[in-house]
């Protein structure tokens, strides 16, 4: 349906567009509401926490300013950053050669390797938690390093698939031409292939970073018993939940700190991320 062959838009069509738009705005608002509520709650003064009102009478920033004293939240952010950055670096180092080689070469064991990668995408840490926990405690590996390795491992499949797809889409001839022009094999890889695959690389990096940042179950299991300031953010946020009462104001202020950056990061890869998750299976 090309626009040129259609008659000029009639009023009825115009109305239909606005009905569709209206429905989409309502849906978008429903998806936003829970997170807007997080902002409302983070700004609610403590003495209004017991009021059954949708909005507080006053807004305050005190939940954000008092967030940093005494609870060690800064330490937790540092811990989460270390884990997410470390996992991302390992995924990049491991998935780049694997994605490139499987895209460029046909060899014995290639299908087997890709099947192994696809299978790991299907397993999640929850299914083998006991094994993960006992393995790292047997070897006496500190929780930070253990969480880096675990998060790298469980995001490897996504990275290998999306990189494989990107490298496959770059014509070999481009690389060969660059090699003829005197760049050499390594030069051609670094100057031609990697820049062309950059969107795929960035998508793999951001996706790994976000899922490691958000990971909860393994983090909860491996960092148990450590001081809050050395626990990842997702675990540390639970310190505001007491046995008899919950410090909702600080909980949601910390929640915003944990959530807003990754939502912004995710917006960058929104268009490509589905491809990486389903690449192994969609024909």
């Amino acid at each position: 349906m090309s626009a040129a062959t259609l008659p000029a838009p009639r009023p009825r069509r115009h109305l239909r567009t606005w009905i569709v738009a209206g429905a989409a705005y309502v849906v978008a608002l429903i998806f936003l509401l829970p997170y807007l509520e997080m902002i409302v709650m983070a700004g609610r003064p403590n003495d209004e926490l017991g009021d059954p009102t949708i909005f507080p009478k006053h807004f305050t920033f005190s939940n954000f300013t008092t967030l940093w004293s005494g609870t060690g939240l800064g330490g937790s952010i540092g811990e989460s950053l270390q884990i997410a950055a470390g996992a991302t670096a390992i995924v990049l180092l491991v998935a780049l050669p694997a994605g490139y080689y499987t895209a460029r070469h046909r060899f014995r064991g290639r299908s087997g390797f890709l099947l192994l990668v696809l299978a790991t995408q299907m397993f999640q840490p929850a299914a083998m938690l006991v094994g993960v926990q006992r393995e790292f405690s047997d070897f006496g590996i500190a929780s930070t390093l253990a969480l880096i390795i675990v998060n790298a491992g469980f995001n490897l499949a996504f990275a290998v698939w999306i990189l494989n797809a990107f490298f496959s889409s770059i014509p070999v001839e481009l690389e060969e031409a660059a090699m003829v022009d005197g760049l050499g094999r390594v030069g051609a890889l670094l100057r031609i292939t990697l820049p062309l695959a950059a969107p795929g690389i960035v998508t793999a990096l951001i996706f790994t970073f976000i899922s490691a940042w958000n990971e909860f179950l393994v983090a909860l299991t491996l960092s148990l018993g450590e001081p809050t300031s050395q626990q990842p953010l997702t675990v540390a946020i639970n310190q505001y939940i007491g046995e008899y009462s919950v410090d909702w104001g600080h909980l949601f202020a910390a929640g915003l700190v944990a959530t807003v950056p990754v939502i912004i990061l995710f917006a960058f890869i929104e268009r490509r991320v589905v491809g990486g998750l389903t690449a192994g299976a969609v024909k």
Partner: protein
Amino acid sequence: MPALRRLTPLLWLGPAIALIGVVVLWPVVVMVQSSFQNIGGDGFVVGYDGTDDFRTLFDEPDFISVLERTVLWVVIVVAVTVLISLALAQLFNQTFPGRTVTRWALIIPWAASVMMTALIFRWALDPNVGVINVILHHLGVVKHLGSSQAYWLGNPTSALAWMMAVAVFVSLPFTTYAILSGLQGIPGDVYEAAAIDGATSWKGYLAVTLPLLRPAILVATLINVINVFNSFPIIWEMTRGGPGYETATSTIFMVELKQGNVGESAAMSVINFLLVIVIVVVYLGTTRWKEQVDR
């Protein structure tokens, strides 16, 4: 040297294989081993105890109901997610002003940690001051704030219903996007041909669009089944599986058991793991992954 050349793939793939070995394969070995050992809650290994862990697990009064609930949880959450996503994908496949912005709103539950989303809903369902209850009170649905009617998470049935709703909510973005990308792969002239044949839009959807979406729906469904089966943060943060184990799925049950009896928890993991393998085999069988690999 041909022998050396055959080893070059290992040079490129070795690191990935090593990582998979450390994070996936070895834990499976340790897990299976643990399920035949007597291990206390503190992780101290007393010794091998044969199939005692499995027998203890099968004798748990809650074991069967937990498994039944897990099946119910997966089937309902995934089915509702896919149905709503089909409608949402159709909506967001239209052109209208502000589409980009609305699509950003759609991804938020996907980008945010599920744990935070679960905590927002736990707060919103607070019987005294939670915003959902306050709104329902204004609407007259909830008669009294603080009453047992407002305590949704205290009653196993209503708690499960709310937690399923949250699970659907966080699964919708990925599923909608997967179906959207399937929709965009359908060439426009297919619709024109259907329109010429006199198909109305609803008939055309059932006869033309839905069959062409089959691969996208299959993949999205199976990825969702795995995610929802392993889902932990929602139930953990909203009810901890309680009261008792009345809202626990097998993943929650496994984590709860780990605090008292690691061996029994490992046995539960092995059962979970076998279930995941069955799902994976079905996944690989239905999605023809091999055609993709050998392309």
